[in-house]
């Protein structure tokens, strides 16, 4: 009986210690745990990708010949376009030199594979990437796909990086409307009932972002591009976030708010780039 009471006391003491651990210690513990689980996650991710690829080959087997012909045509077309762009690039360089314009910022991208979606408890919208501090990834770096911004790194271990997605309500991004130059804050709204009828809340899907604090007196239209403003220091300037879907006046009548449709397909992420800012 005494032994049991002692164990019970020790358990509660351990819980109290865990609840009061300094952030740096808990981050280090978590980083170690993520590093240890990463090989399993890599393995599962590898198997799943192989499985998907094989299934896709089987599904597409019939259309392979037609697909090949189409791709050859596309390659030829793209070669022409590249040639045309090379000449444009040369023109551009010449103009830049004439204007004595220098690039103030360069971005270096680190290609990463998504090895896990979501966290254990599912309260946050995150993905885990297979690159960590050993590969030059650190916390608070922007993460993008070829389409646009998807989030920022939060907890980074030696071999993994956790990314808080822009769809998460806890993620806020300083942004700007590319055409009008108006600033605002974009935040995720998590997931919600899709469709018009909000009473059917069983069917959930990603929700558009919410852009807040858009100053009045500016011409803002639906379809305007929303890009990162570069303010705040986490996200480099000019990364595409989405397009304005709907704009309306805030209930306080002090500023506009807008729904922004994301451009990156966050639902089916396989690869992402971590943006290293080089000054």
């Amino acid at each position, binding site marked *: 009986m005494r032994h049991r009471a002692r164990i019970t006391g020790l358990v509660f003491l351990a819980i109290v210690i865990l609840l009061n651990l300094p952030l740096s210690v808990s981050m280090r513990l*978590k980083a170690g745990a993520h590093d240890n689980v990463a090989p399993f996650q890599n393995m599962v991710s590898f198997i799943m990708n192989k499985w998907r690829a094989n299934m896709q080959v089987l599904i597409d087997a019939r259309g392979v010949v037609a697909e090949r012909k189409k791709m050859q045509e596309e390659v030829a077309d793209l070669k022409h376009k590249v040639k045309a762009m090379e000449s444009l690039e040369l023109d551009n360089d010449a103009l830049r030199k004439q204007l004595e314009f220098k690039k103030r910022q360069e971005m270096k991208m680190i290609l990463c594979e998504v090895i896990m979606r979501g966290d254990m408890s599912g309260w946050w919208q995150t993905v885990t990437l297979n690159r960590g501090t050993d590969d030059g990834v650190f916390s608070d770096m922007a993460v993008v796909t070829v389409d646009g911004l998807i989030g920022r790194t939060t907890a980074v271990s030696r071999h993994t990086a956790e990314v808080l997605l822009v769809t998460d309500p806890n993620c806020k991004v300083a942004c700007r409307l590319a055409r009008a130059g108006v600033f605002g804050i974009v935040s995720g709204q998590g997931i919600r009932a899709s469709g018009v009828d909000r009473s059917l809340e069983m069917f959930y899907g990603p929700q558009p972002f919410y852009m807040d604090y858009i100053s009045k007196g500016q011409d803002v239209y639906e379809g305007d591009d929303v890009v990162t403003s570069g303010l705040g220091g986490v996200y480099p300037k000019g990364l595409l976030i989405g397009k304005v879907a709907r704009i309306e006046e805030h209930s306080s009548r002090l500023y506009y708010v807008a729904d922004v449709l994301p451009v990156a397909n966050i639902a089916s992420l396989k690869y992402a780039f971590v943006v290293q800012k080089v000054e």
Partner: protein
Amino acid sequence: MGWLVMTFVLLCAAIVQSLLPSFICLGQSRPPLLLAVVLYYALRREDDITLVAGLQAGFFQDILDKGPLGYSALIFCIIGWTAGRFRRVVVVESLITQVFFGFIAGGVVVLGGYLMLRGTEFTGCRPSWVLVKMFGVSILSMICTPVVFLMISKLDRLLGNIEVKEEDILDDFEYGS
């Protein structure tokens, strides 16, 4: 030996849970294997073992999660301790018991987690989403709890951690012959 088996089972459950996909339509929840393991020890063992199982399970969940450390440990210990109060009044081997405890515990974990996270920087989600999440985790927990119970009891029998009743041996013999 029993402690080692428990730690091993919890470690495996944590790794498998982290690898399983989450279901958006069920509030972005994963099958709560760690919770099922805690329930197994709560309904099969004494309180001290249950609390240690809850602490370990919570620690594994928190350490692989984005949230603060200790939250899941506290919730799992409370759930385990509460479930342990019913140990002597329910038929643990019954599928209905396992499904019922899985369902209730799943909902309580989400509700407890939400209430605790509200006090942090977590800016959270709508109450309707929390309800969907509660329902989702309850459903998943209801499904995975009997499976986890079956697997751990098989492992425990194999390693001699639980006594095999005479009638079970006779049943096996009859099935075998």
